[in-house]
């Protein structure tokens, strides 16, 4: 706590009377009561109890229950000595006197008890009030209190300090003058509506202090109900969320920049791949014409040169087409939907057909999945085609496809008993045009798994490869799965 902190000590004496005052009151008041009684006796013949009781109550009020008790003792002594027969002694004459005395002590005891309850209650209220004030000063800009009509009654010290205003300036609707112009009308309208209806108040707006600094304020409040019904006041807090707002804006800006950059990159990649195909077409066509026209007419070297050139041109065309295929992943205009995995896999198998005779595909559990159907058919096509392509020549090709649903995701795999993938290559194979074999061993450009990865990642998922059956490979992927209806909640729980 800094010096000048608005926090107040919570434990405090309710009424700070000095000890001297209390002791003097304890002794003096009963004596004064006694004197008053003497003075009034000739005219009114008052009984002594009420006045003495009043004096005890007075001491209790001013000094607390302990002094009240002490005053009771003094008063009882005075009462007994001066006013109960036999007078001016400490004896009691008879039952009547004893009863009177007892009654006097009892009634005063009760009064002291009642008053000390009141006193406790008041102290508790004060304590709670101070605790609240301290609490409300802990976070900028602190708590506030308004009356039942929405007029601000109290704003915290940190608020007043930041916005350099006084309590009077903020009172009523004065605080709204700190709100930036374009938001002021709306806030005032909303606040008035909220006060009228008694809703929970939750609003964010910007305020400017006299120095021109703008803060984003999150204000929240609740109406406090009167125990008899109706509303007593409004109580709430203002939070300084300027930092949070700034961070949010920054992150949004970055996200926008990244999205724009990615879109430009995508566009560039697509246009390049597309435009490069044009001159390539001319190259490939005329190389082929050369091949046709002059094969065997020039020397063997020329034939070979032309063959290499034609092969390279074809390869280049394949690469460009694959790049364009990769490009179009994740840009499907169709919305995602829930599909039966089994149906998607069946389509994929149909597309890859005809498969060699000794290819066996078995299925495990295949739940539903939330995805783009076309892209996932492509995904399975690629994985199944790979499993068939990279099989062991001597053995029959066994492929197992299964999936299971987890909390918030679906995980699936395509496992084969083929030639497998060594652990050190298991990351690289998902890169564009990365291959582990030459094109003469196995055909292909190495785009397949890159497309698979892009499909899975554009669904927010992950793909990787593990050991398969008998040294083969097992391609696994998980995709986040959102329930899209009440039925799915049941399925998710199952």
């Amino acid at each position, binding site marked *: 706590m800094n010096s000048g902190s608005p926090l107040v000590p919570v434990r405090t004496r309710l009424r700070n009377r000095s000890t001297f005052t209390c002791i003097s009151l304890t002794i003096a008041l009963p004596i004064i009561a006694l004197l008053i009684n003497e003075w009034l006796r000739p005219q009114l013949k008052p009984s002594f109890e009420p006045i003495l009781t009043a004096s005890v109550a007075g001491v209790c009020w001013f000094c607390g229950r302990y002094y009240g008790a002490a005053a009771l003792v003094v008063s009882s002594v005075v009462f007994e000595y001066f006013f109960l027969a036999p007078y001016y002694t400490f004896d009691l004459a008879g039952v009547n006197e004893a009863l009177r005395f007892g009654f006097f002590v009892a009634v005063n005891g009760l009064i002291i008890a009642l008053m000390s309850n009141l006193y406790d209650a008041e102290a508790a209220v004060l304590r709670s009030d101070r605790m609240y004030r301290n609490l409300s000063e802990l976070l900028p800009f602190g708590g506030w209190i308004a009356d039942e009509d929405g007029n601000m009654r109290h704003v915290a010290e940190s608020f007043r300090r930041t916005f350099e205003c006084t309590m009077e300036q903020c009172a009523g609707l004065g605080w709204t003058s700190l709100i930036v112009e374009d938001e002021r009308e709306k806030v005032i309208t909303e606040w008035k509506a909220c006060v009228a209806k008694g809703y929970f108040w939750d609003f964010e707006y910007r305020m400017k202090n006299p120095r021109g600094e703008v803060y984003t304020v999150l204000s929240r409040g609740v109406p406090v109900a009167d125990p008899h019904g109706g509303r007593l006041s409004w109580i709430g807090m203002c939070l300084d969320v300027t930092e949070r707002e700034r961070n949010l804006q920054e992150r949004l800006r970055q996200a926008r920049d990244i999205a724009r950059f990615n879109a430009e990159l995508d566009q560039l990649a697509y246009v390049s791949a597309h435009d490069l*195909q044009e001159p*390539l*077409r001319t190259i*490939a066509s005329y190389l*082929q*014409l050369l091949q046709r026209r002059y094969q065997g007419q020039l020397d063997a070297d020329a034939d070979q040169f032309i063959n290499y050139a034609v092969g390279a*041109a074809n390869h280049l*065309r394949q690469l460009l087409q694959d790049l364009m295929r990769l490009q179009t992943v994740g840009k499907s205009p169709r919305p995602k939907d829930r599909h039966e995995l089994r149906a998607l896999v069946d389509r994929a198998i149909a597309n890859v057909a005809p498969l060699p005779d000794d290819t066996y595909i078995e299925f495990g559990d295949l739940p539903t999945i939330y995805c783009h159907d076309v892209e996932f058919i492509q995904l399975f096509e690629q994985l199944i085609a790979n499993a068939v392509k990279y099989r062991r020549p001597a053995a029959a090709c066994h492929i197992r496809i299964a999936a299971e649903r987890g909390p918030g995701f679906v995980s699936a795999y395509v496992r084969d008993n083929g030639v497998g993938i060594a652990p050190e290559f298991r990351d690289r194979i998902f890169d564009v045009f990365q291959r582990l074999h030459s094109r003469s061993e196995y055909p292909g450009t190495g785009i397949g798994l890159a497309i698979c990865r892009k499909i899975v990642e554009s669904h927010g998922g992950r793909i990787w490869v593990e050991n398969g059956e008998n040294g083969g490979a097992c391609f696994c992927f998980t995709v986040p799965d959102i329930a899209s209806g009440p039925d799915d909640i049941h399925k998710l729980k199952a």
Partner: protein
Amino acid sequence: MEDSPSDVRLMREALSAHDSSHELLVVTDGEQAVRFLRHEPPYTDSPRPDLVFLDLNLPRLDGRDVLSMMKADPALRSIPVIVLTTSESDQDVHNAYDLHANCYIRKPGDFDEFLRIVRACDDFWFHIVRLPK
């Protein structure tokens, strides 16, 4: 109707490889195309083509405009038009058919493929299909 000399030559080579007896006439921009079809100078003696291969991207007058002009003219609209072009965009395909092109072919990536297409066109349009006299 093709502006790229290399593509014109490819067509000639394909036709000669196919041993076809058709005569290939070439115009290299859209304006020439219109003049040819309307027998305007310098094409006053031009014959009426039996079949037109049309590239969409022609200089001076765009291939799409030539196509719509042909199909609007009662004297010319019965001539089958084969759009033979580099674009594969769905938009272009749709527009071409919308303007009543008879078919749309994307120029293939190599000569073998091109030869196959030319053979198929010859087969289809001159041996399977009957053309108006």
